[in-house]
């Protein structure tokens, strides 16, 4: 039975899709049979980040509606074994995600995969609720600024009551924080919240901190999840996050501003 992981945030544009792609790829690289599903119906872009946009024939909504079966819709990643992508439909809206349909598709996928990563749309509406409903755990993606933290807090509140596990009388699903686009320099200058600030407000376990990095943009232009770029800071930070996700303990990296030398301090402006 697969473990279902929702990547969610409330606020838009904070790095959910980047994270979904990186975590799914990282899990597959470690040999776990992994699928990543784009729940952002109408605004699909997971396939772009995964570099498979030109191989999309059928999508999630097609499978829900019975126009295609899972085998036809799942795209096998060309670079990484064990990795599959279920793209979203660009032409439909989120109402196309019916409760029964999502449940049936996830149920079918659960037989074949170890992990199913659900890339949630922004917001707290239907699409986001659908992505979270069947999850066994959540990765909450947050940027170090007040509005993103507030939205993550809101999503955590929703996760506490609106999952199948809770509705069936179980405990709320565990949620862990992934702080992304972290810029130690800007934190030092007081322009961004620090890890401690965010941790204090959200009061949940920290899965990782991903630095603000040009490598993320390069990766998405290349259609290659940033975790595959192990030369880069963001790639390594995502790799750490995947390791922690699987229970390893790794120290945080890329969270301190580089110490400027005397020269830098004198002439650094």
């Amino acid at each position, binding site marked *: 039975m697969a473990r279902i992981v929702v990547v969610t945030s409330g606020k838009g544009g904070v790095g959910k899709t980047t994270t979904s792609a990186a975590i799914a790829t990282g899990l597959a690289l470690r040999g776990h049979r992994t699928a990543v599903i784009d729940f952002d119906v109408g605004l699909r872009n997971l396939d772009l980040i995964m570099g498979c946009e030109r191989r999309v024939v059928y999508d999630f909504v097609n499978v829900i509606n019975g126009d295609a079966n899972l085998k036809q819709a799942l795209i096998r990643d060309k670079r990484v074994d064990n990795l599959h992508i279920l793209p979203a439909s660009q032409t439909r809206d989120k109402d196309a995600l019916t409760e029964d349909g999502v449940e049936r598709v996830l149920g079918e996928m659960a037989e074949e995969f170890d992990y199913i990563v659900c890339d949630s749309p922004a917001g*707290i509406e239907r699409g986001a609720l659908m992505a979270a409903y069947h999850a066994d755990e959540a990765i909450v993606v947050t940027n170090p600024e007040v509005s993103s933290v*507030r*939205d993550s*807090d*809101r999503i*955590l*509140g*929703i996760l*506490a009551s609106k999952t199948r596990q809770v509705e069936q009388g179980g405990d*709320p699903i565990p949620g862990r924080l992934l702080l992304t686009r972290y810029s130690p320099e800007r934190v030092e200058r007081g322009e961004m919240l620090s890890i401690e600030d965010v941790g204090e*407000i959200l*009061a949940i376990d920290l899965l990782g901190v991903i630095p603000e990095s040009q490598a993320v943009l390069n990766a998405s232009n290349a259609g290659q999840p940033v975790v595959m770029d192990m030369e880069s800071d963001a790639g390594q930070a995502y790799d750490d996050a995947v390791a922690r996700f699987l229970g390893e303990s790794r120290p945080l990296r890329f969270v301190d501003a580089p110490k400027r030398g005397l020269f830098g301090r004198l002439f650094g402006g």
Partner: protein
Amino acid sequence: MSASPSSVQAVELKGRMLLVSVLRVYDTEPQNLSMMLAARRDEAPELMRDMPIVLDLEPVAEAGEAALREVVERVRAEGFRLIGLQDGEAARALESADATGLPPRLSMGGRGGSGELPLGEGRAPRETADQGASGEASAATQSASGPVAVHSATRVVDQPVRSGQQIYARGGDLLVTAPVSAGAELLADGNITVLGPLRGRALAGVRGLVTARIFCRRLEAELLSIGGHYRIAEDITEAERGDNRLVTLAGESINITES
């Protein structure tokens, strides 16, 4: 579905906080309406019992004046305490046709309860004022003759209360052993204790218990209210914020002390 799920709102009326429930009607067909009202009562009976209701007829503004008036009558007949009509097209049409027996128009804020404070508007709602007064009167009796059984039980919450969440301890005290986020709202007929930082809104004694208190490990609240009197974040000084704060009502003013 013919009505939205329960939404409780703390609103400001004549400078005081009052807890009301907004009933949004989507269907005027009598049978559907009755079913909806019954469902509404079952869905959250503890919230509905004698909480004042503001009726929002705007979604069915097209239904015509006779049908709308019938909805008003039916809501009253079902025993809901109607104190106002959501201001808008429907309410104005009804009022201009015949204002007798209609509750006043009130302008409520958006859904969900938390966020900015919606303001009362239009005619002053007399029933509300009366209710506030009687609330004070009964509270006065209480302090004279010792605590009456206003609170019966303590509701305990061990999970963080997050932005957008609302917790109401009806008929009792509320104890939260975790943080309360900005954008969250705590309500209690009795006292409120937060054994963590309080960054959201806390309204104690919402049905008029002026002797109610609020205690929190750390006070960073957005709003504090006791027995209908309140203070917003802007009026809470830096010195009043901090650890181990006790909030009480003295006369009409909210006092914050370290304890």
